[in-house]
């Protein structure tokens, strides 16, 4: 198999000993078809066991190996070495606090995810004896794309708005709100609007579209947010301009 000497410039930060982060250069022999994650694993196994990063599935499903690779948010298990020339710069995901080396703290995203109630709030509760909630293929297709999110947070690292305004609920969490709003079994839209229709919700988005470009699951958060802007605007008109429309 063809091999290639790859140079990686990896951001290192140890909160116990470092006052600030610095780059460390590694040279590692890699196979041509490897991804950046393979190179990091080789470094950790053979060169520097102190290197820290998150990963799990190695097949773009778990969403835990997101990093900035040459300044772009990518899943490192999905970033093929053959796509890069020269020194590859690997940094932790932008816009998140760095815990150690390439490991970031996802707490802000997790807290926002909870706020949008990303679960089915049944339209009508019925006892188990009445059977399952049925759904047609057409009803499924309305939200299926938005349910593909793997919570990798690449969209947050790509979103300039989140970088500038950390209060922004952000692409992935809002898209999940949309996913449940679009579900025929769900009746929780009004509750979610309390978060979605605020300044920190969809209205902080300026439709840059970077979220959709970097999404490894092709969720297209930007489209979900624009659709929610339209429905939130219709809500606003009903609430403010139509007599008796105030909810």
């Amino acid at each position, binding site marked *: 198999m063809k091999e290639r000497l790859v140079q990686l410039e990896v951001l290192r930060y140890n909160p116990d000993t470092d006052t600030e982060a610095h780059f460390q250069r590694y040279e590692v022999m890699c196979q041509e078809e490897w991804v950046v994650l393979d190179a990091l694993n080789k470094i950790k196994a053979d060169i520097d066991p102190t290197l820290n990063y998150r990963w799990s599935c190695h097949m773009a499903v778990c969403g835990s190996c997101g990093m900035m690779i040459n300044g772009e948010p990518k899943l490192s298990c999905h970033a093929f070495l053959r796509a890069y020339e020269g020194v590859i710069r690997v940094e932790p995901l932008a816009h998140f606090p760095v815990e150690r080396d390439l490991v970031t703290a996802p707490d802000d995203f997790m807290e926002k995810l909870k706020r949008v109630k990303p679960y089915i709030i049944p339209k009508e509760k019925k006892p188990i004896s009445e059977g399952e909630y049925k759904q047609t293929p057409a009803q499924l297709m309305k939200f299926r794309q938005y349910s593909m999110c793997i919570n990798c947070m690449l969209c947050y690292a790509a979103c*300039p*708005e989140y970088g*500038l305004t950390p209060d922004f609920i952000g692409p992935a969490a809002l898209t999940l709100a949309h996913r449940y709003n679009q579900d025929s079994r769900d009746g929780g839209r009004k509750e979610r*609007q*309390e*978060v979605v*229709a*605020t*300044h*920190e*919700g969809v*209205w902080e988005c*300026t*439709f*840059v579209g970077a979220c959709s470009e970097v999404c490894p699951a092709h969720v297209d958060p930007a489209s979900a947010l624009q659709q929610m*802007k*339209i429905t*939130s*605007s219709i809500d*606003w*008109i009903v609430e403010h301009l139509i007599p008796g429309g105030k909810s």
Partner: protein
Amino acid sequence: MAKSHKPVVWFPFAAGGTVIAFCIPVIVVLTFMAALGHVPAGLGYEKLHAFAGNGLGKLILFGVVALSLWSSAHRLRCTCFDFGLRADTLVATLLYAAAIAGSIASAVFLLRI
């Protein structure tokens, strides 16, 4: 958290964005063609003047101009914000004032035809 009143500015922005996407490229091409002396049949000065003189024509022209201006002002406001210019109230006031001034001007010119 209170719900945002952003729809007031966003709805005309979205409408303007649609108008810009559909109409403005056509208008730009037609203007260039006219400048080069190729005026398509049916779009001569007399016909367009008559269109602008008609009540419905005035309304359509005003809609295209005003919505495009509003949309551009809002887009520019967002762009300033994205580029880190955080004096949002000042930027918004200036840009929306320009859009409103342009809209009033187009209304005045249309009414004088």
